[in-house]
Each structure stands twice: as structure tokens, then as C-alpha cells.
């Protein structure tokens, strides 16, 4: 059986004496990040919304932090949601959203930290059985309408995967221009240490005659709300 040294030896052999000095260091870094003005952010939000719609996502627009709970509760009620699963927020207080949902008579599953191995399967099933999963994204990409979700103990990424309807909130400060900026914003450390998913629209396939169908394994619908902090 081969081990690391075997493989490395084979590869070294294969590369032979080809001079490595010649290998140009590729500087693939994107444009440097700079602070965005409120105007820039509004512009990015518009672009984000446009791109999200082009990948069949539902753009809910921008709202103030204190309006988010009501907006989502209304959406849940409108779409006939009976159970919703919700994780902890990043910058947004999702507790308020849970309360608002409960007020609407929707039963809420809070993915509490510290799932133990025994009830993991059960918890996954309960998340899968929920009609709606609600989560906050760590970052949103304007040029592609993409959301970056970092999976943590209190914010498992199955919230954005298992329920048929996915609601994702993102703080307007977390909007970036393109994929390179998103990767830079999240940073090598965060990415080395967490499972991260970039989500661009609802789950889709083109496997039957290259015709696009939504909702294969992941959510059939994706609703995104951009939250603007109250003081601006």
C-alpha cells in the first residue's frame, strides 16, 4: 500500500529536474477590500437582489433589524408553514424571529448547541421535517447573488439544506462585491476551521434534457432578507 512518501516520491520523480525557480508565483488575489459607504452598500444590495432573482431566488429586500422578525413571521404564515427550524444569529437576534413565529402559531425548533451523538439522527430528521429553515449568512456576494454560510455548533448548515423552504438573512455590512472578496472576507482561518457553503439560489438540476428544475435535494425555494442595522 502506498503512503505519503511513496506518492510524493512518484510525483517528484515525474517532475524530474524541471526548474521550480521558473514557476511564476501567481498572484491571484482579488481587488483589495475597502470600507464601503452606505451608498455602496445600497448599490450592492440592489445588485445582489437582481442576481438572486436571476437564479430563481426570492429577494425580500432590505428591512430594519427590528422589522425582520415580523417580515419573516408574515412570510411563514403566508406560505402555510407549520414548523420552522432556526439557528442562532451572527449579527442579528434570531430569538425575536422565533418569538414572532410562535406568536403566529408556528412551532419552532431551535437548534441548540451541543447535539449529542445519540440524538443527532433524530435532530436531523426533525430539521428535515420542518417546513422552513431560517439562518443567517456570514456574507453575501453581490455579483452572483450568493450567500456564504459558515456552519457552527449553534448554526448548523443543515438549516439551509434540509427544509423545503429556506430563509436566509444577511446583515448589509456583510455584503461584498464578488467571490474573491467573499473568500478574502471569510479568511483562510475561518475556512480552514469550519465547514462553509456558498449558496446560489435554490437547489436545482438540469439533468433531464438540460431543462432546469428547482428543488432536487435541497430547498425548493430560497428567500433572502437583507437587514440594515437600526441606527443608519
Amino acid at each position, binding site marked *: 500500500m502506498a503512503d505519503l512518501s511513496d506518492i510524493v516520491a512518484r510525483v517528484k520523480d515525474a517532475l524530474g529536474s524541471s526548474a521550480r525557480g521558473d514557476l511564476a508565483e501567481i498572484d491571484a488575489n482579488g481587488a483589495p477590500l475597502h470600507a464601503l459607504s452606505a451608498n455602496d452598500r445600497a448599490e450592492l444590495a440592489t445588485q445582489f437582489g437582481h442576481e438572486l432573482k436571476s437564479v430563481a431566488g426570492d429577494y425580500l429586500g432590505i428591512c430594519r433589524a427590528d422589522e425582520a422578525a415580523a417580515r419573516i413571521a408574515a412570510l411563514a404564515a403566508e406560505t402555510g408553514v407549520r414548523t420552522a427550524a432556526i439557528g442562532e444569529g451572527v449579527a442579528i437576534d434570531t430569538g425575536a424571529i422565533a418569538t414572532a413565529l410562535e406568536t403566529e402559531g408556528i412551532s419552532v425548533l431551535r437548534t441548540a448547541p451541543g447535539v449529542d451523538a445519540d440524538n443527532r439522527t433524530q435532530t436531523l430528521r426533525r430539521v428535515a421535517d420542518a417546513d422552513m429553515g431560517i439562518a443567517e449568512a456570514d456574507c453575501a456576494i453581490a455579483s452572483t447573488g450568493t450567500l456564504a454560510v459558515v*456552519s457552527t455548533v449553534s448554526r448548523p448548515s443543515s438549516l439551509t*439544506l434540509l427544509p423545503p423552504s429556506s430563509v436566509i438573512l444577511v446583515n448589509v455590512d456583510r455584503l461584498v462585491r464578488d*467571490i474573491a472578496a467573499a473568500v478574502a472576507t471569510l479568511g483562510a482561518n475561518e475556512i480552514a476551521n469550519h465547514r462553509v*457553503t456558498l449558496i*446560489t439560489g435554490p437547489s436545482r438540476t438540469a439533468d433531464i*434534457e*438540460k431543462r432546469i428544475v428547482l428543488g*432536487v435535494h435541497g430547498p425548493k425555494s430560497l428567500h433572502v432578507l437583507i437587514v440594515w442595522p437600526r441606527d443608519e
Partner: protein
Amino acid sequence: MAVSPKATDFFAASEAGAADHELQRKLESASARHLEHFAEVRDEFTPYENERATARAIKENALGRLDELIVELTEKLTDHDCKVFFAASADEAREYIVKLATQCGARHVVKGKSMTTEEIALNPALERAGIEVLETDLGEYIVQLRGEPPSHIITPAIHLSKEDIGELFHEKFRVSYTPEPEKLTAEARTRLRESFLRADFGITGVNFAIAETGTLVVVENEGNGRMSSTIPEVFVALMGIEKVIPKLSDLPHFLEILARTATGQKLTTYTNFLRGPRADGDLDGPREMHVVIIDNGRSAMLSDPVLRESLMCIRCGACLNVCPVYRHIGGHAYRSPYPGPIGSIVSPSLIGSSTAYLPFASTLCGACKDVCPVHIDIPRILLHLRWKETSSPAPPPWPHDAHRARAGARMFARLARYPRIIRFLGHIAAVLVKPFAENGWIGSMPPPFANWTKVRDFPAPRPGHPRPANSAGKSIRNGRS
């Protein structure tokens, strides 16, 4: 494998494909739809040409110091509590995974789309070990139900119409027949959802492995790759050694070109960054994560200065979509998990001598090279492989008529060194066949030209007898000369 496939099988298989007009119609309309999608996103954000050049440069650099990158990646993955296994051959990789599945008592395996698992013929081996294997990519699921291999690296069921799939579901699931993609997809969703929730072992391929961060990137649209790497307790990622890229900041370039060329999107729906097993208390991710890094002929490709380039491939499938040979014979004719132009250059190294003819089965039209997002010079590699095959100690045995054609060409090439002799022979040939020509064309020729006149007429040779100058216009209506 029970019966080892023979290289000559390609002839029968491609003949069947070439005669299947229905298949050609399906492939043509699918590629047309694909090209429409691609045209919509081609020049979104950074101009596409710049992206192609950057992506290629990164790959070139990465391959040039692949040994260092593999060490770096392995260290990082090990730090993240992944178990990294190196497989020199397909057998080693397959045996490792089957043994692992058996040891952890796996009963239900779910798989994301992975051509590399096809390369190592993993499914039959797992099944022989009594383990259920379920392909979960919709296209893969469909072809698995039919007991077929995929026929395209991005769109596995591209050879089937929605009606074919409707009938398949009707037959297998006893549901009422429908050709509607939405309803068929919904049916598959319901069935596969339950399988995901009970799966105990997940397997996917890897699109990119980032050495800097020890991250495996799996790109997909359906969510099945996410499911397979999130739900089962044990997860295996299988990757070729060439998938490593140096830095996190290299990744966006590949994500952009891959999505655009593979499916005509700006970004695929899900880009999964996997780093290791879940932490204590986490809901998502496996308890155990294994990374199998396979050579299986890749280091040999790396050592060949012409072939090396083929390791830059990001498996976008664009070359298949534009290839007229692929579109006329279909993916199954190649009898390799890697069909089409890319398949013709990598299969002899990754699959073996049963694919020895693939490099010859090309007109060298170059449509693949034009479209390839990393500018792989596929025609040049095909030529290189033809030469390697021809000069190998055991060249593939050609069917009789093809052999005769090749021998004839070789003879011609030797005689053509003596222009006087070859011109003289040309004149004799012209005199001999003249009686058989009609309007300048001959309907039936003896070997080695018999294969020519199987499908079209042969031009009557007429060396030294040009049509009178300036007659091009006048002669339209009255025969060829």
C-alpha cells in the same frame, strides 16, 4: 471485472452510436441548450479570456510543485482529523474504501457525482460486499436505475429523453407515466430523501483541494453532495493527485470558469468547503472523514511533458458538448467513465489499454481546444498519444480494414519521399479507375479505399488534368470537370 474489455469493442460501440439518429438528436438539442446557457454568462464580470489565462497559470504552477502541495494538503487535513490514504492504483483505492465500509458496518452508501469513483469501479465492489450503493445526483440516479454507466461527465443521463426517463420511473416505481421533468424530479426527491436520512456512509469526489487551508471543495447544483457529506457518520472524499491548488485566493478563478463552462451559471448552486469531521456537539458533518488521494497513472502523465497538460482539466465537460464525434456516437461508445475529447486523452492513462483507440477516433477538428476553459491543447495531445501507441512495443491490434488503411498510409508516406515515383503511380491509378468514374466520382472502390466508398463517393484522380482555368463558374451545371 469479470470480462476484460477489448480495445476493438470501440468499433462496434461507436458504430451503434453512429447509427442511432435518435441519440444524435438528443445530444444535439441538449448541447444547443447548453450553449445558450453558456452564452448568457460567458462574459459576466471579469472578461472570460482573462479568467481562462489566470486559471491555467495557476494550474501550471500547481502541477510544477505538486509534490510540495500534496505534503502541505496532507498535513492540514491530518490536523483537521481527516484520515488521509494514498492509493497508487485503482485497486488500492477501491479495496481501501470497501474495507473501510465493511469495517464500519456500513449498509447504505450514498454517493455524490464522482467520475473518479467510476474510474476505480467502486460501486460493483461495494455491492459485492453486500452494501447498498445509491447514486444521488439525479442524472446518476437515473442511469443507475437503468443499469448503465453515465454517458457525460456533467450530465450523466444526457442520452435519455424525458420520455425515456418517464417510462423508466413508471416501470421501476410503478408510478403513473409522466414525461414532465418537474414531476420526475419530485419523485426522485421523495425517494432519495429517505435514503439520505438513513445513510451511514457517504462518498463524493473533489473538485479542488486547497493546500493552504486543507479544504476540499465540492461543487454541485442539487444538494446531494452536501447531503452525502453532511448526514452520514462516515464520509469519504476521493480525489486524484492533480486536484490540489495552492491557495484559497486561487479558488474564485476556478469557481467562475467551472460554473460558466460546465452549466452556464455564474456560480454553481452549492460550493461546499469541507475540512474534516464534525466537532463535538456539531449537528452537521461526519464523525469520521477519510480522504483518498489516488495516483493511478497520473504521475506518469505528469512525467510526460505533452500529457502533463491534461492534468489541468477541471472536468467541466465543455469539450464533450462541442465535440462532433461525441455528439454522433454518444458517451457510452467510449467505454470509459471519461468520454469525449478529455476522455480520449486521459483514458489510456487512467483506464488502460482497452481505450487505446480513443486518441485515433478524432478528426482533430480542435473544437475542444477552442472551448476548453484552461486551454488544453487536446489535438496536440491526441497526436502525441497516437505516436506513443504506434511506437509502443505492443501497439493495439486494429480491425482488418483499419489496419489496411494504416498500412496503406504508411506505404504512401514512404513512397512520397520519391515524388517522381509517387506521381507516376498516381497517373497509373488515374487511368485504372477512370472507367468507373461518373461525373468525376466513383461509387465503389477496392481496399484500402473500400471503407471510403461505404459512405460517400470517391473523387476520380486526375493528376495533370486540371479543369480549364477560369471555368470554375461555367462548370457548375455540367459535372465536376
